[in-house]
Every structure is written in C-alpha cells, then in structure tokens.
C-alpha cells in the first residue's frame, strides 16, 4: 500500500526525491512518445507534478490489488495525456517500466487514450468532458457503501469548454460530493491554439465558485505548493473542491514549453535527442 493517507504507507518520498522522480518520468514520457511515433507530450509534461503528488504523497492504493475497494480513485479525464499517466502508474508499480515501449503498439495494454485494460486505470477516455461525471459516480458509490475514499479527477483547461463539465460541476455540488476533488491542468493551450484564442475561460475560479465548489489555486509544478494544497483539500470538506493548477504546457523541454505545436505530436529524432539532453 502506498500513499500519504495509508496507515501502513511504506517509504515517504521527500520533495527532493519527488523532484528527481519528475525529471526521470519526463524522460520516460518523451521516450514513450518518441518510440510510439505519436502521442501528446504537452499535456503529459504539464500534468506530471500533479500526478506525482497524488500517487506518491496523497492517495492510498495498492498496485498489487488495483481493484482494492477502499482505494482512492484517480480519473484521468484528459485521456490524451496518457503518457504522463502511464509513466506514473508504472513507477507506482502497476506494470513494468519496459511496457511503456508498447504504447500505441498492437496487442499492448497501454492504449493511445487511457482505458481500464491498463492496471490502475479506472475509466475509458478519449472524448473530453466525461471524467468529472464518472468521478461523481465514484464519489456517490463511496457514500452508498459507507466508505471514506477520495476521488480525484484531472481535467484539461481546454476540456472545460465541454458542457458536460458544468453539468457535472452543478450536480456534484447539489449532491454534496465532499469526497470529490477536481484538478484543472491550467496550461492555457488546447488542441489548436492558446485557450484564450479558442474560448475564454476566465474568470475560471469564479465559474467553479458560482457552481458551488471550493476553489484553490496553486503553481502546478511547485511540489511543496501542490502538496500543501492537497493537504488543504482534506480540511473542512463541506463542498466538492477544485484545484486550479497553473502549469506550463510542455514543461521541462524548452522548445515544447508554451508551444501549441506540441499538444499532440511526437518529437522527431533531433528533437528527441535535444529533449533528453535537457532532461539529463
């Protein structure tokens, strides 16, 4: 059993250890996508510290028993950012790291968009907007079963254009899903362009607040700040909680950072070498 809330949690990772892990997993992400020849690097790199915080300090789960009834649930709603998710799941012990090389290949368990055929994945994904509803279903199931697990859903900021996100937001507050935490990966770039050019989201904090949510904002790459924010979500839970995590698309690779071109394309051979050098 791993995770900050687990009574028998094993190793507690220090922040420097998590920061070192982030660098390693960034290399895994680049390698995974380069090997596959396709995939979504930008959002995988922007979400990474959020996932690392959840999987190595916040959530309780058991990779030996992915269906453990009392596990905290994590729902990747922005399912295209699967390489980041797989890098973390693999490091957490759900499957061997070597399997990352099978991403998007025939007969692989790790699909282009996250699917529950992969150990540790709760929900099929690839069509935006669905994860918050699904997460609410998980949160209500906890209530029906008298369980105290938490449910975390990671949303893209571009994904918040989907109407279903706001249907789910309204209903989660109505049904008092206090064990539900959404995280918006606010990297300000969506498929085509900058979010400000495609669809205005701001004031995003007020939108969530007006829908009945408690809102936190944090730097989504600053691990101490993220951990502190997740800690705060556990206090006085009377409403669903959203964390708007301000991130940088393509974080860690200079030419991918803030570059809409790397939302959904693999690096070429030169770019791959350069990225690995930067992440060395």
């Amino acid at each position: 059993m791993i995770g900050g809330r687990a009574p028998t949690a094993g190793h507690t990772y220090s922040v420097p250890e998590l920061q070192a892990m982030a660098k390693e997993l960034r290399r895994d992400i680049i390698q995974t996508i380069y090997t596959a020849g396709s995939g979504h690097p930008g959002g995988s790199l922007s979400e990474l510290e959020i996932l690392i915080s959840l999987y190595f300090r916040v959530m309780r789960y058991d990779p030996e028993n992915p269906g453990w009834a009392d596990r905290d649930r994590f729902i990747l709603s922005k399912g295209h950012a699967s390489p980041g998710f797989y890098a973390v799941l693999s490091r957490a012990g759900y499957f061997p790291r070597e399997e990352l090389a099978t991403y998007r290949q025939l007969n692989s368990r790790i699909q282009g968009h996250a699917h529950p055929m992969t150990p540790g994945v709760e929900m099929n994904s690839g069509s935006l907007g669905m994860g918050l509803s699904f997460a609410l279903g998980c949160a209500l199931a906890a209530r029906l079963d008298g369980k105290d697990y938490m449910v975390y859903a990671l949303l893209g900021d571009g994904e918040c254009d989907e109407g279903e996100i706001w249907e789910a937001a309204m209903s989660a507050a109505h049904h008092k899903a206090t064990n539900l935490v959404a995280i918006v990966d606010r990297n300000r770039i969506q498929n085509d362009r900058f979010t400000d050019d495609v669809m205005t989201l701001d004031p995003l904090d007020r939108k969530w607040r007006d829908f009945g949510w408690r809102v936190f904002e944090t730097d989504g790459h600053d691990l101490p700040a993220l951990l502190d924010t997740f800690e705060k979500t556990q206090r006085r839970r009377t409403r669903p909680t959203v964390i708007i995590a301000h991130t940088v698309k393509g974080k860690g690779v200079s030419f991918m950072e803030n570059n809409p071109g790397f939302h959904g394309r693999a690096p070429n051979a030169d770019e791959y070498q350069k990225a690995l050098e930067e992440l060395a």
Partner: protein
Amino acid sequence: MVAQRKMASTRQTYGETLLDMADSFPDIVVLGGDLNVSVFTHLWRDKYPERFFDFGPAEQNLVGVGAGLAANGKIPFVSTFSVFGVGRPFDQLRVLVSQGNLNMKLVCTHAGILTGEDGMSAHGIEDLSLICSLPAFTVVSPADSVETVQAIKTAASTEGPFYIRLSRAATPVVHEEDYRFQLGKAEVMREGSDVTIFATGVMVSVSLDAADMLAAQGVEARVVNIHTLKPVDEEAIVAGARETGAVVSAEEHYFHGGLGSIVAQVVGQNQPVPVEMVALQGYSESARAEELMVKCGLTPEKVKDAALKAVARKK
C-alpha cells in the same frame, strides 16, 4: 377481426418492477433526469431517496455518473425518454458504457410514435439504430407489460450494459401471466408455414391481428416476437426463412437500422428469401398515438399486405 386485448402501461410496470427488486438487489440505484413522474421512477425516488439521484435534464452527466456508479459495483438504472437517453448522451454511452463494458441499465420510455402529441422531436424513432450500433449493449424491446417485468428483472441480474425500450402509451397485453421470457431467445407466438412475421414491441400485437386476417384468406403466418434485438436469435430468423420461404419485419421504428435491418442481414447471410418491412419511413407529427399508427401504416392491414407481397415474391 382485431382481437380485444387488455391494455397496460409498460412504463408504469417498469416503476413497479423496480420497487419489487429493491430488497433482492441492494446494489440497484436509480438515476433520473427530471422526468421521473413520466418514467415512473418517482415511485422509487419517494420510497428510496438515499438510492436515488436526480440530475435534471442533463443527460451527458446522467449517463456519465451512471457509468461511474456501475464501475464501482452499483447497478444503476438510468431512465428518461428515449430521445434524451440515447440521442443526447450517445458519446457517453459509447465511450464510457460500451467501451468500458459497464453494468449500467438504460431504460427509456416514450420510444417511437406512440409518444403521440408531443410531436416529432419527442418521437424516438432512431433509438434502436443508435443503440444497436454499440457493441457491448444488450437491447430489449418488450412486447407488453408482462414481458417488461421479466426483461427488467433479467437486466438487473445479467452483467453488462442493457437498453430497454418502453412506450408512453398503454399497449395491448399479448402474454399470459405464466409467460417465461428468455433473453436472446425469440418467442414463436403463432405457428404458420406460408410466411413468418418478425415483430418487436407494440407491433407484436399488431402482427398477431394481421395473422388472423391472413388466416381468413387462407395464408398461415408464423408470428415471432423478437424481444431481444441484440444479441438477436439468428436461429429463429433463419428457421422462419427456411421453413416458410418469406419473411416480414414489423417495428415501430425508422426502417433503417432497426429490426428490419437486422432481419434482412440475418436472412441475406444465411437463407435468402423475400423480405418485406413494415416500419416508419421518416418523421411524424403531433397527434394521438392511435392516429399516428394509422397514418404511418403500422396497422394489421399493412402488415397483412406486406405478408401477401412477400408470399407473392416467392419463386
């Protein structure tokens, strides 16, 4: 010539059947979209409020939450009108429920033109076509209230996604109380050797009446109730084609992608014989259900005519 049959509301039967199952299926939860009085889930809402969740008319979220509950061991019965329950959240049904192969039960009422006065936007005439295109779904279109009870109970006790199609209007009861529904096994309701009529939903009753008319003209029609459209009982369809040499499909649904398409596919692949289809040809309008059935040609006379045409086409 038209038999007098008792009328019963399949949607009311649905609501009452849910109540019957509350104790034996503790994992059942009911999800509604602000149409609970119309789909009779208000009976459950008022009796088991802790096992009921309303989402308002927001069907994408309705199905998405149902999927999340199903993934965590619950048996969600998700209900609204067929136009809203299938059309609106089709992508959630596809990605979450079908591709995730989740144990969610979508029970929609107000299917087809029997919805009547509310008009074409309220007539779910495409639902079977849409839902049958989703690989994981089992699809059941009960012929009457007696069959509805058992279809609902079967859905609760059978793992996997289900769609069950019910009507707004009360429909004729064609089964005795001791009838035993078998999922995926078509029911031969009348034997005949000249032509086979494959019918579903309210058209089973209409087709039985057509068979009486045909008998008066010396044509013996077999009438088969295809309550399960998916997986369909191919054996029963092939047997009808082989043993009677001509077939008719009869459904209260658009002709594309429903029972007619399924029957034609099975017959064409296995036992090519003349196929005639009685189905809706397009959108309808506001009027009373029985008026629409006549205007749209879903009558015993039209089924009879189709059967005679199929017989005449035999080589």
